[in-house]
C-alpha cells in the first residue's frame, strides 16, 4: 500500500488519502516522483552505445544553495523544443549547463582560502580554477581537463564558503568525472586503485564474509608493503576492522523493527561503514529512534556514492544510486523520511544526487533526507528529553571534530550544542580545520603526507582538548582521528543512546 503524507513528514490523518486522478493535489507528493523524466544521467557519463543526444537535462536545482539555477532549471526535457533553448545548445555533448553558476563567480577567492588542499599543496590551483575557470576552459574542444582535478579531495568546503552561490563541487564532480572517463588510462594502477577505493562496499562485503581473517590479512605487514608497492595504498594506514556481525545481520536477527508506528517512520540509510565496520553506530541509532517512538525501516541499499564522486567514478555511483533511489522512494511512499548516520551519505543523497543524476524520484529522496541527529533536533524536544534523563552517571570528555560534509549541511555545531547542557558530558570542538583524509584522498600513497599535514592542526587541538575520546559523525574522519592520535573515536548517536538511557 502506498501511503501519502504531508510534506512535513507528519502522516496525520492522511492514511486514507490516495492521489485522485483529477489532480486535486498540487504540491509535491512524497513518494510520487514528480520529476518524471526518463532515467538518464544529467552529468556527462556516456553509457556504452549512448549517443551524445542526452544533453541538457539538468536537475530542478543546479545550485548548491538554491541561489542560482541553471539555464534549464526546472525544464522538462521531453517538452523542450531543441531549437528554442539556446544556452545549452551552445555547448555540445551533454554537459551540465553550469554557465550561470560560472558567471556568478566574482573572483573573491573565498573558496581558495577555505580549501584545505591548497593550503598544503601549491601544485593544486584551488577551487576557483577547478570550478568556474575550468568549466569555461573545457567548453573548447581542444582543452583537456587539467589533471590537478584529481587532487581535489571533494571536501566541499568551497560550497560553504562561496558567498555567490557558485555550484563549485558540482563543477568539480563533473570535471573529475569527465577526466576519469575521457583522459585517464583505464589500465593504469592509479585508475584501478582508485576504483577499488571508490568501491569500498564491494571489498567490505567480501571481507565481511570472513571478518576476522580479513581484518588480520588486510593489516598484515608484508601484505601492506605489497599493497603500497603495487597499488599505491600507503602502508602507514591501518585498515578498519570488520565487524563479526554486520548491522544488517543484527537487524535481521533481532526481527527488524521493535516499534510500529505509521505516524512516525524513518528509513535508515546506514551506508557501508555502519554496516560492515561500526554496526554499534547503527544499533545506537535504532535504540534512540525507538526510544522516541519511531518505526525504523532499513531498506535495501548500496553505497551512497561519496567515494565514487571523489574519484570521478560517476558510472559506478549512478548504478548504486539507482538502487538507493528506488528503495528510498518506496520507503518515502510508506510515510518515512530518510535518515543517515554518516554525514557524507546524507550530503550525497541531499546534494550530489540531484545535482548529478536524473533518476525517477531523486528529488523526493533529496528533500526527504536528513542527518540522524539533525532530524531529532527538528522533530523532538531533545534538550528536554536529555534534561529529564538526568545525564551520565560518570564524567566523560570528548574531543569533537565536525566533518567538512557536516559543515556543508549546517550541522557543524549540532553535536556540541546538543550535549552542552548534559550533566557529565564535556565536549570540546577541536576547531574548523579539515581532518585531511577526505574519504579516499588520504588512502592514496601520493596524498598521504598532504593528508597528514592537513590533519596536523586537528591532531594538535585534539591533544590540547581535555577529552581522551574523539567524536565525529564521519567514518573516515574517525579513521584519521584515530590514526593521528591513537584515541578511540565514537559517534554522537552512541553518546546520545547513553545519555538518554535508551
Amino acid at each position, binding site marked *: 500500500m502506498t501511503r501519502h503524507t504531508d*510534506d*512535513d513528514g507528519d502522516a496525520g490523518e492522511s492514511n486514507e488519502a490516495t492521489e485522485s486522478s483529477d489532480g486535486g493535489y498540487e504540491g509535491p507528493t512524497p513518494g510520487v516522483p514528480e520529476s518524471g523524466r526518463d532515467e538518464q544521467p544529467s552529468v556527462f557519463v556516456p553509457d556504452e552505445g549512448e549517443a551524445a543526444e542526452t544533453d541538457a537535462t539538468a536537475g530542478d536545482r543546479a545550485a548548491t*544553495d*538554491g*541561489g542560482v539555477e541553471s539555464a534549464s532549471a526546472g525544464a522538462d526535457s521531453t517538452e523542450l523544443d531543441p531549437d528554442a533553448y539556446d544556452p545549452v545548445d551552445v555547448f555540445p555533448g551533454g554537459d551540465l549547463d553550469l554557465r550561470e553558476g560560472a558567471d556568478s563567480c566574482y573572483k*573573491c*577567492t*573565498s573558496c*581558495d*582560502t*577555505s*580549501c584545505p588542499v*591548497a*593550503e*598544503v*599543496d*601549491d*601544485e593544486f*590551483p*584551488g577551487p576557483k*580554477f577547478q570550478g568556474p575557470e575550468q568549466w569555461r576552459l573545457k567548453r573548447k574542444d581542444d582543452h583537456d581537463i587539467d589533471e590537478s582535478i584529481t587532487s581535489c579531495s571533494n571536501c566541499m568546503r568551497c560550497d*560553504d*564558503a*562561496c*558567498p*555567490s552561490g557558485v555550484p563549485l563541487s558540482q563543477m568539480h564532480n563533473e570535471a573529475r568525472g569527465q577526466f576519469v572517463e575521457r583522459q585517464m588510462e583505464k589500465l593504469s594502477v592509479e585508475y584501478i586503485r582508485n576504483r577499488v577505493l571508490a568501491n569500498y562496499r564491494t571489498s567490505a562485503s567480501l571481507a565481511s564474509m570472513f571478518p576476522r581473517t580479513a581484518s588480520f590479512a588486510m593489516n598484515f605487514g608484508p601484505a601492506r608493503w605489497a599493497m603500497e608497492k603495487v597499488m599505491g595504498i600507503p602502508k602507514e594506514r591501518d585498515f578498519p576492522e570488520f565487524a563479526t556481525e554486520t548491522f544488517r545481520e543484527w537487524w535481521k536477527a533481532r526481527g527488524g523493527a521493535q516499534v510500529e508506528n505509521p505516524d512516525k517512520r524513518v528509513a535508515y540509510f546506514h551506508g557501508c561503514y555502519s554496516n560492515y565496520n561500526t554496526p554499534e553506530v547503527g544499533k545506537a541509532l535504532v535504540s534512540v529512534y525507538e526510544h522516541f517512538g519511531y518505526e525504523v525501516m532499513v531498506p535495501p541499499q548500496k553505497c551512497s556514492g561519496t567515494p565514487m564522486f571523489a574519484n570521478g567514478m560517476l558510472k559506478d555511483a549512478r548504478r548504486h544510486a539507482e538502487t538507493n533511489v528506488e528503495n528510498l522512494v518506496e520507503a518515502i511512499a510508506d510515510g518515512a523520511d530518510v535518515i543517515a548516520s554518516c554525514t557524507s551519505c546524507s550530503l550525497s543523497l*541531499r*546534494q550530489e544526487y540531484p545535482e548529478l543524476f536524473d533518476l525517477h524520484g531523486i*528529488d523526493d529522496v*533529496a*528533500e*526527504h*533526507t*536528513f542527518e540522524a541527529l*539533525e532530524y531529532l*533536533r*527538528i*522533530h*523532538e*524536544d531533545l534538550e528536554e528529553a536529555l534534561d529529564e534523563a538526568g545525564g551520565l552517571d560518570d564524567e566523560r570528555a570528548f574531543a569533537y571534530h565536525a566533518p567538512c560534509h557536516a*559543515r*556543508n*549541511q*549546517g*550541522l*557543524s*555545531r*549540532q553535536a556540541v*550544542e546538543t550535549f552542552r547542557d548534559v550533566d557529565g558530558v564535556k565536549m570540546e*570542538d577541536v576547531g*574548523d580545520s579539515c581532518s585531511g583524509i577526505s574519504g579516499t584522498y588520504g588512502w592514496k600513497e601520493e596524498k598521504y603526507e598532504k593528508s597528514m599535514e592537513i590533519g*596536523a*592542526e586537528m591532531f594538535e587541538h585534539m591533544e590540547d582538548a581535555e577529552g581522551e575520546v574523539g567524536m565525529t559523525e564521519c567514518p573516515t574522519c574517525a579513521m584519521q582521528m584515530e590514526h593521528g592520535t591513537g584515541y578511540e573515536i565514537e559517534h554522537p548517536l552512541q553518546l546520545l543512546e547513553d545519555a538518554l538511557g535508551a
Partner: protein
Amino acid sequence: MAINSDVLVIGGGLAAITAAVSAAREGADVRLVSHKSSTLRQASGLIDALGYVPATEPAKPLRDGPPTAGRNLDRDEWPDPEGPLADPFEGIDRLPESHPYRVVGSDALREGLDLFDDLAGDAYRGGHTDRNALVPTFGGAVKPTARYPAAAEAGLASDDRPMLVVGFRSLTEYDARAFAGRLEAAGVPFDAAGAEVEFAEAFRADAKITRLAKALDHDEEIDGVPAREALAKAVAPHLHDVVDEAGGVDRVERVGFPAFLGDDRGEEVREELADRLGADVFEIPMGPPSLPGLRLEDRLFDAVDAEGVRFETGNPVVGVESATDGRVETVAVDRKGRTAPYGADAFVLATGGLVGKGLDSDREGVREPVLDLHVDQPDDRYEWFVDDAFGDQPYARFGVRPDERCRPTDAEGTVQYENVFAAGGVVGGADAAREKSASGVSLATGLAAGRQAATEANQ
C-alpha cells in the same frame, strides 16, 4: 516543532556577531544562523568608524532629467568628501539625519567599539583613543580607521621611521615599489622604499596566500632552509634601500609585508622576522584573500562560542513562516530542500547589503529577500544613481529604514514587525564606501539591535 531561542540573529558578519553577543550579555538565549561562511574572511580586518563626511549636495545643481548613464551630456560634479577625519565622533553631526549613526546615536558607536575591543583583545590596537589611525593599505592609500590589527601597528603612517615595503613577483595583485611610490606621493612623514624579493618564487606561481601563511606558521623547509629564515634572508639585502631627501641612506626601522605572515601563529612569525631583521615587522592589509579577515573571523566566533551563543552556518533563512499580531513567530530555514521552523521572541536581521546579498535587486527594484522588509527607493531606476561615480550615489544608501529601536519601518514610517530588529549593511542611510564607516555601522547598529532584541525577548 520549531527550534527555539529567545533571540535569533540572522547573518554571520560583524553586525550579526555584535548583535548576538550584545543580546547574550543582556541575559538572552541567543542563536545565530548564517547561510555561508562569514563575509569577514573577505574583509580587510580593519575596523573603521568614520573616515570622511561626503558631500550630499552636488557642486553645482544637478541638471534636469535623469542621469546620463555614461552618455556625454553635461555630467554632474560633486565636491570631494571632507576628511580624513581625525575624530570619527566629531563628524557624526554632519551626516544626514537618516544615517544609522544619527538613528542609534554616537554612544552606540562608542559602546560598539568597546565591545569589539573586549572581544578582539590583544589582537587589535587603537582602543586607547577616540582618534582615527592612518593605516596604509595595499593600494598605497592611507585609510583612516578606528581599530587595526596588532600586526599592522608598526606600519602606521603617522610614524616617521623609514619604511621598507617588501613584494614578490609571484604575488601579482601587489607591487611593493608602486606602493612605496604612492605612499611618498601622498606626503607621508617618512621615507619609504619598495623591494621585490625572491621567496614566494619557491612556490608555484599561483600558490594561495593560505599556502604561504601555512608554510610560515609551521616554518616548513624551503629548499632546505626554514621558511622564516628564508624570508628574512631574502629581505636582508634591502635593509638599506631607503634614500632620504638629502641622498643619504638610512637603515630601515620597519619592514612591511603583504598580509600572509602566518595564520594561527602570526605573532610568532612576526617576532622571529623582526628578530632576524633587526627592524619592526608589520603586515599591510590586503583585499581578499585576506588573512587578517580570516583571523578576525576565528577570533570573533571563538568569542561568540564563549558567550554561550549557539550558531550554525550552512543553511539560509528563506522567509517568515508564521507571524501574528505584527510579530514574527517563526522563520523558515531551508535545509537542503525542506524548511524547518526556527522560533524566537525577537529576531535580528543582519544579512548584509547589496554585496553581502542581504539586499537583492533586479531591473524592477531593490528588495530585502529574507523577511521582505520595505526598502526605500525611487520608482525610476534612473534615479538610483548619479553620473559622477564618486558622487552621492542613492543606491549606496539603499536598505531598510529603522526606527530609533532599530525596527524596520514601512513606506509610511510604521514599524513592520514589533519584534524584528535590523543591523549592519542591510540598514540603509550610510554610504559606507565613501564614509569608511562599514565596520562602525555594524558595531553601532549590532549593539543597539542586539540589546533591543534582548529587551523584547525578556518582556
